[in-house]
């Protein structure tokens, strides 16, 4: 190592904060930073005035972010005199007259000409060359010049996402690229977004994923690992959408996200700090108030003889002025904080990089919290002339806190739902006592009270630590130029500690006031002890995996031919183990420590369990690839991968996955180049490759029993505890199981026009997936009576197009702008599909149709508003029933389309339906729309910079499907909700009654009939929203220099600031109204480069 320490740290006029952070970073990186002090000095360095005839010019070259650039060539125009910048970006050059023009050039940057004009100091900022031929794209196991790319590879503009205050990296990719779908990630703190690429499909139900494979620094990692990274540690994200993913063989069918992390760059230490603080809030769903809900319930109960169910007039009047939303009482704006700090630098011999990032986000309910530290440090060292070594260490530490609300299940959404659904006429507290919401005669002691659980410090917490070590050694063969050998070893360790703590609390019921005893009040009638699990629960686990790679690469250019060859092997093993354990029966006012759990009942029986889950897996692969190009004009790539995985039986383990892609850069052809001047570049490319997916549970090829469990055992011997059981884990082995296969075809055009101002990328793809791992459910008789193992069965062809069109230009010297729009469409066709044989030939036969067959429902004919409407219906159709129920006034009624399905098929094996029979039942369902999901997506990215001010936004939208109001917004979604007096969305206030026959929505009483899926409840599925927005201002250089920094930028960023189209009356974003809503976050940030 050749870093040299300089004892001049104290001279630095930095802030105290900076010093502290520097020390911290230094500690992590294990490398000295003290050159920072030196780095910024030259800029200020006073040029000594000389009287020499020769004019000495000094100066520095920096990139647009203010980082010094080393090795930049500075040449005097029309002469051979020149120099290069030093590691700190400075240069000194003799200019004979002082009138010369300097040509400043560096690979990857736009060459500039600067006139010296008698200046002694010339500072230059080089702008990186975006559409240059030299732009490099990261692909599987390597990188390629963009011009040589033959696959559909999308690159994320890291600059566009660097400031976003997101809790997971996936969320930052929203509305960035066509064909890359991002969902979730903007609601509950710590809940990550998910990504899908090009409409993948999956038919296995025993494992597997639709998420793409994640590869970080050439190591296959989990999607979680991707999400725990901070933008600031990522150099590049490429998304392999087509056969380019075939290099990842049996796991590449869903596409691949290839991430490279930042490494040190030669040059003076470069220090960057970014911080932001944001505020997140959401528009809450609009629910009924107490009076509206009581009225609705009265209208529901209109037919009852049990008058005590009804809310009397005095009660209704009381609720008019005494109504509260529990949700609004609990909800408040939340805050996000982000700090990201990194440093990099080095010499020709060694470079280093280190970063620390901290993300914190609290919830909109007290005590929900998420925070995460991500750190990364790496050093690349040239050990000798031919050997390079690098070592990297990265990791994350995160904590996620949420509520434990155990009563009646433990969905994460219990907090939001219990508050949202709380009857608004029931106050949370009466006379300071927590009120029991329970009003129907449930035979259980359990009930919810969010605020009491909140007070009791009941929580569900997880703490995750990840540590990753990456080491590699690269050898440049001296005996054959272009031959390199490399070994990399990566070890990944994850630890997780989950803990749940739930106590008991007391709830009160009162003798109640009001004529029918519906107003909370009076004396305490009873006190119930509610058990919020009454338990302390632990779930620690760890995972340990490694990946070992050996590479041989050979690059050679001879004449116009250039070839590069890659051969590698890869092996990996993973092991994980975890236990879950708990103790019941906490003492009153217990703290969250097992020492407060009695762990037994009054009768002394032990209450607590421990269970272990342990797994191991292994994989082995061999990969070969050859890239060839002729004169940057004809491009070809061939690759093949052999993969083995322990998910399959030994004799079926290995699979082979070849791919081929070709490109033709027509714009390099003389006949084109010389004739079509407005086109700067035009490339046609095509790819075909075989990939796979191991979407299944491991060891499906063995029949097995689960290890001994309790909880599902019988009771013998009177009052003994449940006996233990063995239960079939895999009831039916499938030894023949193999990878599923996906042939990916892609054709595309990359073009730029009009002096590279306009760029176009066009792709069409056709993914033919066959032998798909399918969990058969319909084409197997149900008398088999088991969850089946996956079988290689289904065939689906997915296809679509992606178009992206950009325009980059400037209006004048100070004002530039960039706009890019993209559009995507995708759909698929089921060729071999698991379906009920008895539906062959009917409207529900999925053969040859898309997995999205449209919206299945009844065609509504409106509401039977008057007796006349009903009479007219019955006159035409005397036996008319809706699922056995006679139609009544106030009900939604439906079109009768068919009668019963024939019992036997016709000669062709097709079934048909009888004529309409006057009865509405499942036979009358139809696909009401062509599509249910939005198959068209579009986005618009706009950015403009005026002098130091930049503004950008991303717009995302989709259309083509059909939405419907949630069942909970049509009436009570379940009878349990009805019984528990759950609140309803505001839209239902306008419901049919005798006095309001022209209401928008039907009478409450016919919950089951009205709530059926039908076009009555349709709403548009069109979406259009501003997903991100950024305004930033860079401090003028002069001011920055005064502050002793290279550059500084302040910014305001927003995620989900605006929904431009909302067809719902009771909610703001399209997600289900009874879950934690999509948050809009506005954050203010600062970015410093020292």
């Amino acid at each position: 190592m050749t870093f040299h320490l300089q004892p001049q740290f104290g001279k630095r006029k930095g802030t105290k904060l900076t010093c502290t952070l520097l020390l911290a970073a230094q500690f992590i990186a294990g490398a000295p930073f003290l050159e920072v002090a030196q780095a910024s000095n030259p800029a200020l360095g006073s040029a000594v005035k000389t009287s020499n005839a020769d004019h000495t010019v000094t100066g520095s070259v920096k990139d647009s972010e203010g980082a010094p650039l080393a090795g930049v060539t500075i040449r005097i125009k029309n002469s051979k005199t020149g120099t290069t910048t030093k590691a700190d970006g400075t240069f000194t050059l003799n200019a004979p007259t002082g009138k010369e023009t300097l040509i400043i050039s560096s690979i990857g940057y736009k060459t500039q000409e600067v006139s010296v004009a008698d200046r002694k100091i010339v500072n230059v900022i080089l702008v990186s060359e975006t559409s240059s031929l030299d732009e490099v794209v990261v692909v599987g196991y390597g990188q390629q010049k963009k011009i040589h790319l033959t696959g559909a590879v999308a690159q994320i503009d890291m600059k566009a996402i660097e400031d976003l205050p997101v809790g997971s990296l996936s969320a930052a990719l929203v509305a960035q690229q066509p064909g890359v779908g991002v969902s979730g990630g903007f609601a509950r703190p710590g809940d990550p977004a998910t990504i899908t690429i090009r409409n993948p499909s999956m038919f296995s139900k025993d494992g597997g994923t639709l998420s793409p494979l994640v590869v970080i620094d050439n190591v296959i990692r989990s999607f979680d690992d991707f999400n725990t990274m901070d933008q600031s540690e990522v150099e590049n994200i490429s998304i392999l959408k087509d056969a380019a993913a075939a290099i990842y063989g049996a796991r590449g069918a869903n596409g691949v996200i290839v991430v490279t992390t930042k490494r040190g760059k030669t040059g003076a230490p470069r220090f960057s700090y970014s911080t932001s603080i944001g505020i997140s809030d959401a528009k809450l769903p609009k629910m009924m108030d107490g009076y509206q809900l009581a009225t609705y319930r009265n209208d529901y109960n209109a037919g009852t003889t049990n008058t005590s169910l009804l809310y009397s007039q005095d009660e209704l009047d009381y609720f008019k002025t005494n109504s509260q939303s529990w949700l609004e009482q609990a909800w408040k704006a939340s805050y996000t904080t982000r700090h990201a700090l990194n440093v990099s630098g080095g010499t020709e011999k060694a470079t280093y990089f280190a970063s620390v990032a901290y993300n914190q986000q609290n919830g909109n309910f007290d005590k929900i919290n998420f925070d995460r530290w991500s750190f990364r440090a790496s050093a690349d060292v040239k050990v000798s002339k031919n050997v390079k070594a690098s070592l990297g260490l990265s990791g994350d530490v995160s904590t996620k806190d949420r509520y434990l609300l155990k009563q009646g299940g433990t969905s994460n959404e219990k907090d939001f739902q219990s508050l949202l659904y709380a009857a608004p006429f029931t106050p949370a507290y009466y006379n300071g006592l927590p009120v029991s919401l329970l009003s129907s005669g449930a035979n259980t002691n359990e009930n919810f009270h969010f605020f009491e659980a909140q007070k009791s410090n009941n929580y569900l917490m997880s703490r995750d630590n990840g540590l990753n070590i990456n080491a590699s050694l690269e050898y440049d063969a001296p005996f054959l130029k272009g031959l390199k050998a490399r070994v990399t070893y990566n070890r990944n360790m994850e630890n997780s500690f989950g803990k749940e703590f739930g106590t008991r609390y007391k709830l009160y019921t009162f003798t109640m006031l009001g004529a029918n005893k519906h107003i909370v009040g009076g004396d305490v009638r009873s006190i119930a002890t509610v058990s919020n699990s009454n338990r302390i629960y632990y779930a620690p686990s760890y995972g340990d995996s490694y990946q070992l790679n050996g590479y041989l690469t050979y690059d050679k250019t001879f004449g116009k031919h250039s070839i590069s060859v890659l051969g590698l092997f890869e092996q990996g093993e993973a092991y994980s183990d975890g236990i879950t354990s708990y103790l019941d029966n906490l003492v009153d006012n217990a703290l969250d420590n097992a020492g407060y759990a009695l762990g037994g009942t009054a009768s002394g029986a032990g209450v607590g369990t421990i269970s272990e889950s342990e797994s191991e897996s292994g994989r082995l692969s061999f990969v070969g690839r050859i890239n060839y190009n002729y004169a940057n004009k004809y491009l070809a790539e061939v690759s093949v991968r052999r993969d083995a995985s322990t998910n399959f039986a030994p004799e079926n383990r290995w699979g082979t996955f070849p791919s081929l892609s070709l490109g033709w850069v027509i714009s390099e052809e003389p006949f084109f180049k010389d004739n079509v001047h407005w086109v700067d570049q035009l490339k046609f490319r095509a790819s075909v490759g075989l990939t796979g997916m191991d979407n299944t549970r491991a060891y499906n090829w063995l029949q097995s029993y689960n290890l001994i469990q309790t909880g599902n055992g019988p009771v013998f011997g009177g009052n003994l505890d449940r006996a233990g059981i063995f239960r079939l884990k895999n009831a039916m082995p499938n030894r023949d199981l193999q990878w599923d296969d996906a042939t990916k075809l892609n054709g595309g055009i990359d073009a730029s026009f009009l002096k590279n101002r306009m760029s176009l990328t066009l792709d069409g793809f056709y993914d033919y997936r066959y032998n798909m791992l399918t969990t058969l459910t319909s084409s197997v008789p149900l008398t088999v009576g088991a969850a089946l193992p996956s079988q290689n069965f289904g065939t689906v062809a997915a296809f679509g197009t992606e178009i992206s069109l950009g325009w980059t230009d400037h209006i004048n010297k100070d004002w530039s702008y960039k706009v890019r729009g993209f559009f995507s469409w995708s759909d698929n066709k089921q060729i071999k599909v698991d379906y009920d044989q008895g539906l062959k030939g009917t409207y529900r036969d999925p053969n040859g149709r898309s997995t999205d067959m449209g919206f299945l429902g009844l065609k509504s004919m409106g509401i039977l508003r008057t007796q006349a409407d009903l009479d007219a219906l019955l006159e035409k159709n005397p036996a008319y029933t809706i699922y056995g129920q006679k139609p009544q006034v106030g009900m939604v009624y439906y079109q009768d389309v068919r009668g019963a399905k024939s019992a036997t098929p016709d000669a062709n094996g097709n079934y048909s339906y009888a004529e309409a029979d006057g009865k509405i039942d499942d036979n009358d369902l139809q696909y009401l729309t062509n599509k249910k999901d939005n198959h068209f997506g579009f986005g618009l990215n706009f950015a403009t910079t005026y002098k130091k001010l930049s503004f950008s936004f991303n717009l995302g939208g989709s259309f083509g499907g059909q939405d419907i109001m949630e069942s909970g917004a049509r009436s009570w979604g379940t009878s349990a909700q009805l019984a528990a007096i759950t609140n309803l969305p505001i839209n239902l206030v306008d419901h049919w009654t005798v006095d309001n026959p022209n209401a928008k929505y039907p009478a409450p009483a016919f919950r089951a009939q009205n709530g059926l899926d039908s076009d009555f409840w349709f709403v548009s599925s069109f979406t259009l929203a501003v997903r991100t927005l950024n305004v930033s201002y860079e401090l003028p250089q002069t001011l920055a220099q005064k502050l002793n920094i290279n550059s500084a930028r302040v910014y305001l960023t927003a995620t989900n600031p605006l929904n431009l189209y909302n067809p719902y009356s009771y909610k703001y974003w399209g997600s289900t109204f009874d879950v934690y809503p999509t948050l809009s976050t506005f954050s203010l940030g600062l970015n410093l480069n020292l």
Partner: protein
Amino acid sequence: MKKKYILWSALGAMLSLASCESVLDKTDLNAASPELIAGDSVLANIALNYIYNQNLPDWGGPTAVSGIGGSVYTEESYNQGTGQNKFLEGAVVENDVTDFGTALNATNNYGKIRTINTFIADLEKDNLMDKGAKSRLIAQAIFFRAWRYFELVKLYGGVPMITTPQNAVGTEAINAAFVPRNTTTECFKQMSADLDSAVKYLPSTWITPAANWGRITKGAAAALKGKILLYAASPQFNPTNQASKWQAAYDANKAAYDILTASGAKLITDYGKIWFTEVGNTEAVFVTGYNTSVGDQQKRNSGWEAANRPRYSTVSGGGSNIPSWDLVKAYPMKDGKKPGESKYTYSDLLFFKDRDPRFEKTIAYNGCTWPMSNIPNNRLWTYLAAGKSVENGGVNVSNTGFYCRKALQTSDVAGSTLDPSNTIFSGTDWIEIRFAEVMLNYAEAAAAVGKLDEAYTQVINVRKRAGIEAGSDNLYGLKANMSTTEMAKAILDERQVEFAFEGKRFWDLRRLRLLESTLNGKRGTKAVISLKTTGVPADFATTRDGMKLEDVYTNYFTIALTPNGLMSRPAINYLPKYYFFALPTQALNNNPLLKQTNDWTNGTFNPLE
């Protein structure tokens, strides 16, 4: 040079690792192999435990997936719900009875059957286990297979009889797995054969009953066989009254009676305490165990206690299974004769006076002494004062004025482990087949084959235990010299009160094809007991507990019988086609070889074959 060594040794290390396929030598660390389990009687017993848990009926007896069979489906307790009940209202459509299954599922009826079949097949493959232990394990599993099929055949008639685990990997196997419905006769034959095998290998009693109480015995298998053959002979399956079916039922039930008697089965002396002896209960033939544990993994609590107690928060009940006036009326008088035919005078106002002692032990009524919540002389008051129930401050009150008190642990039960503030942790075991049922099954079959004296003996024994007066003719209120038909009716009436709230009534009426004639057109009746507006002492509310009940009723109460339930709902309307339900449409779509049950849309399957 040193650097070179490092490099080459690293490359060497890499290659040595690479050459090794041991990377792929992995196992499922979280599972046990079937060979391991089937070869060891201890482990196999643990696997059998799951079969027990999946198949033992819940408290209150088996109901179909849709819930049919509970007390609200008969006149025991009328429908209180605000919603529609399709079964009661004649609105059942093809998709409503889903017990057959609507999809592949490891826990529905065919899923449970597969678990049983796999267990049997794995054990039969094995050569390691002791033969005796193996046959006892298989016999228990095979009992539950018959039980499972009985629950299906009861609903639909014949269903596909799967007795080996079907394979469904690969086209060939899948095609072979499609099978049609077996005839009902074939199903009964298979169930009967399975139970014969169970009877043969099962012990009369299990050793160490303290640990094994609740396991299936020889007697339980014989009793189930008797019950199944009684169904096969009953009009639902035997509308033409073929004598051979009755003879088979008689043989099976007599055999069950004899096997059980020989192994010590007999009626518990006190009708009110049948439910409170668990291990060694001489009347319990087929039992589902419940415990008082509270831990999630350990507990299997009976919901009955909490469900049926009144809805006072002090006793934390749910007020389910509320008795109707019709049931109150169904009880005979103390001498075993019906009200009006008895020597004891009956009046609606004094409905509780001089009744069959089982009445008092099954139904709680206004003014009765019901020692709950550790109050020994607690009295239940449900009357209306000024039109409003005095019960529980007028909130969450009984809709008929009555409560079910069968099998509820009150504080007078010796050795009660129940904590009245935590009734959800009740451990009262459910007795699916009581010896009394075996006796009445035997009596019914005996009467049908003309052995009326055997029938008399059994019914009299049941009545004797109930506490009914013997009478001068020692017939305990039974009419002398009854015909077969009269005896059958007497047994049905006996079953109605003996087994009230035990989930038998609906299935009895259905197997006898008496649903429509007994229930149609009814809405149920409740007794509205009101405090008189005049002549009542001002301190009545505080002094009533000390008064004699008969005087209270005579002096201060009026009784009015009014229709119960929601008038907006139609009266009961069972349809004849409900004697055999339709297979769900999804099941027919799934397997085109299945034929729909006769009388339903496109139905061509005759369940009477």
